């Protein structure tokens, strides 16, 4: 097979992987601080995708333009969900948290099925069929725009956590819960804000992913699983790890589909997960437990 074919597929995989990374970043943020594994993560992203579909079909609003408002909506949803439902479960056994969030996921999937039906939906933006030619490379325009947006949102999140007082406070809660309480931080509110930020990440990732893939209610669980694979590969609780994991998984799926058979793409992503769990269980960029 010609080299430009590998290059094209690799670039496509990296671009898709960056969006996956943003999706997984939200999961990593939530777990890193709140220590709750959000088993409704992918389902929340499909909610964002359907909001984008609805805004496009009714008001012809481009998903990339509506990225911030949709992220704000998911932010609010995440805040209310954490403060109202998840907070009491933080100190309960993990299986209780798991069941709660799986229940939330099932409600979301079936709610979307009732409202939107089972058929897949997409958006036909003006640039849906565009591509850029750079030498032998043909780059899908929608993937390129989505990847740039994903990098921008991720950068904004990094800056928030590193350079703002609120971000520093959230990191303090993650590093030392008791210490945060002692210095007077409102930990419950910070947890809710963190969950909301994680939800905002999928709120932003959803419209981006909609440019690349169609959405169905049944896609939620698959995205949740994908987010877990990425986060565990990259390192649970590590924000850079989520992005690296996303790119690695996106690239693996693309190259595996090319070299082997496209219908076995996911197998290689899970193979990487198994290898990471065997040889580096904390993930590529995660910190080993003390």
């Amino acid at each position, binding site marked *: 097979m010609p080299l430009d*074919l590998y290059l094209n597929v690799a670039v496509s995989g990296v671009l898709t992987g960056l969006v996956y990374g943003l999706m997984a970043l939200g999961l990593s943020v939530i777990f890193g601080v709140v220590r709750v594994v959000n088993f409704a993560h992918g389902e929340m992203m499909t909610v964002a995708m359907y909001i984008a579909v609805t805004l496009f079909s009714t008001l012809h609003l481009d998903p990339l333009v509506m990225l911030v408002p949709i992220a704000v909506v998911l932010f609010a949803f995440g805040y209310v969900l954490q403060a109202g439902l998840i907070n009491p479960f933080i100190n309960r056994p993990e299986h209780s948290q798991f069941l709660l969030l799986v229940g939330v996921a099932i409600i979301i999937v079936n709610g979307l099925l009732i409202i939107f039906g089972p058929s897949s939906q997409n958006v036909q933006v003006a640039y849906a069929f565009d591509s850029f030619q750079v030498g032998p490379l043909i780059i899908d325009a929608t993937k390129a725009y989505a990847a740039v947006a994903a990098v921008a949102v991720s950068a904004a999140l990094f800056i928030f956590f590193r350079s703002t007082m609120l971000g520093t406070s959230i990191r303090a809660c993650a590093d030392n819960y008791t210490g945060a309480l002692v210095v007077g931080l409102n930990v419950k509110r910070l947890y809710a804000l963190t969950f909301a930020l994680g939800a905002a990440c999928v709120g932003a990732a959803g419209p981006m992913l909609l440019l690349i893939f169609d959405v169905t209610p049944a896609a939620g669980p698959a995205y949740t699983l994908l987010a877990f694979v990425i986060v565990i590969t990259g390192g649970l609780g590590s924000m850079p790890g989520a992005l690296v994991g996303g790119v690695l998984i996106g690239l693996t799926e693309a190259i595996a589909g090319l070299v082997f058979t*496209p219908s076995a793409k996911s197998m290689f992503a899970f193979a990487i997960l198994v290898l990471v769990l065997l040889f580096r269980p904390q993930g590529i960029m995660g910190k080993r437990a003390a």
Partner: protein
Amino acid sequence: MKKKSQSKAALTRRSFSTGLGAAGIVAGTAPFNIVRAQGAALKVGVLLPRSGYQASIGQDCQRGVDVSAGILKDLGLPSLQIMNADTETNVDVARSRAEKLISDGAQLLVGAFDSGQTSAIAQVAEQKGIPLVINIAAAPPITEQGYKFVFRNFPTGVMILRDAFLNQKEIFQITGSAPKTAVMLHVNDTYGTSIQKGMAAMFPKFDMPYQILQEIAYDPTARDLSVEVAKAKATGAEAFIAVSRLNDAILLTRELIKQRWTPMAVLAIGPGWYEDQYLKTLGKLSDGPISLVPWFDPNKKLSKVLEAALAKAYPGVGMSTNHVYTFEALLVAADAYKRAGSADPKALADAIRTTNITNNVSPGPGIMFDAKGQNDKLKGSAIQNRGGKLVTLAPKEAADAKPEWPLKPYDKRG
């Protein structure tokens, strides 16, 4: 006292005469009783997947049922009482629904789109001795079991592939051009792999002008087909053969456009590329693909009648395989009922066996069944997307347009 003695009389001349007269009336009007029984509508159980992942197809087939009553009446055929049932896209449910319909009085069954579900229903129909007229199901074994009560007015997979090859050759002859190489992308479920295997087995027999360079399988639930199309493009093949469904047909087309590849032809075997949703979603970009599928003969009178009825009942819905073959199954039922003069299942089955309907919709000489219950005279068609509509290119006797060939480049469609 007198009254009591009268009431105890065993048989009087009056009562004997009355009884004799009554018997004579019954005997004399017996033929009229049979006519009155035939005047009653035939109870037809229609089994379709109305929920589950085949729901949209089942609901589309139902449109063929909904418009049939008026047309059958205009043809002078007896009326049918439709009893609907949902197979839920599940083989076990299909079997139990068939049994329930029969126990509720269905005198004939029609269904069920999917080969697996239809096979299950066929077993029930044969066991209970109730005729089944299959609307759509391509698996060859269904009519190879020696069943006496199962009839299929739809081409088998082998017939579909045979006509796919023959129609391609007819198109190559008309256009004076043929691809030398092709790449095949197929969905990797039961349907896709059976078509792929069938093609591999039959390809050498038809002396096609092209060589298939590569066969690429993909998951029916795949969200992204960019790698698959990139691989296909890298083969350098002139033609693109697709065995897909609606969602993947749309995804594949998008990738063809994004990756700047316009093959000489897109030849689709199966659904997707000609469906209303494909045409509506892609607009001008949907023009050109040729689908090699069971279809209708647009030149037949009854096709125009059915098309008009569908357009009136369901504006915006193009007539397709689902409507045509479901309607024809009911046509077979009504025709058999009229000729049998009875709703007796054996009489109905015998009447169906001698069906000879030439005023029909599907291509070929008409509806007639061989000893196995298969209409082996059916012909598949080659249809092409043209300006949001579908035209028939082959077979010659069912054609209403010449092929647009080669495929117009996607980047030159405005």
